[in-house]
């Protein structure tokens, strides 16, 4: 659910803002990566991600709702057939905004906004959550042994991961 935006509309009025965001979304789906101002990118993010959610649903009703925002059928077709399958397993967060610098002329903060189309690489669950999951699973089968083994694994795994970046960090400083 998108939060209501604070402050004045982009452009000159509500209609101008709607058109601007629709055109930016169409450009984003066409080119996969666009350069725009930070303000516009932040306003565009909920709009674009909502359209992608419709695309993942993929039925005719969803397609018509997207077409109500983006009039161009070729862009909508590309969104439904090419972009939607790539973000099938991703649970939100379909766009990435990277700050670049400041525009010459009006000093506006520019960003590169892109679709996150890489395959999803889920983070390993934290030790507490994994232990809780193991505890709930364990009583069904063998209560004692299962929990002990599971806890050992879950405790060991995060410690190794936390050590590795800590070792890397001083090495980088030393350079």
């Amino acid at each position: 659910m998108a939060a209501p935006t604070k402050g004045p509309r982009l452009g000159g009025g509500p209609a101008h803002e709607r058109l601007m965001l629709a055109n930016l979304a169409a450009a984003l789906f066409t080119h996969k990566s666009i350069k725009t101002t930070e303000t516009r990118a932040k306003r565009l993010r909920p709009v674009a991600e909502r359209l992608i959610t419709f695309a993942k649903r993929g039925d005719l009703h969803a397609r018509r709702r997207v077409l109500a925002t983006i009039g161009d059928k070729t862009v909508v077709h590309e969104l439904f057939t090419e972009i939607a399958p790539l973000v099938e397993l991703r649970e939100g967060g379909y766009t990435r905004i990277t700050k670049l610098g400041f525009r010459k002329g009006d000093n506006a903060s520019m960003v590169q906004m892109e679709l996150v189309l890489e395959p999803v690489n889920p983070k390993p669950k934290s030790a507490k959550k994994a232990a809780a999951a193991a505890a709930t699973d364990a009583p069904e089968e063998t209560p004692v042994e299962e929990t002990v083994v599971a806890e050992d694994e879950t405790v060991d795994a995060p410690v190794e991961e936390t050590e590795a970046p800590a070792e890397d960090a001083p090495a980088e400083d030393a350079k």
Partner: protein
Amino acid sequence: MAVPKRKMSRASTRMRRAQWKATAPTLVKTVENGKTTYSLPHRAKVVEDSTGTPLYMEYKGRKVADV
């Protein structure tokens, strides 16, 4: 149209102007190949080749944009 009634004194003009101060930006210090650079945090950096020609912009080891 509203118009000032009195001439503004030299003292109050100068007091107003004295309040305009510069603030130091918060920078990140990075040492690379013995060269120290200061840059804004959370912002893509320009990658240059050995002759100093800008190639592309990089953020967290990823190419994000052309220059």
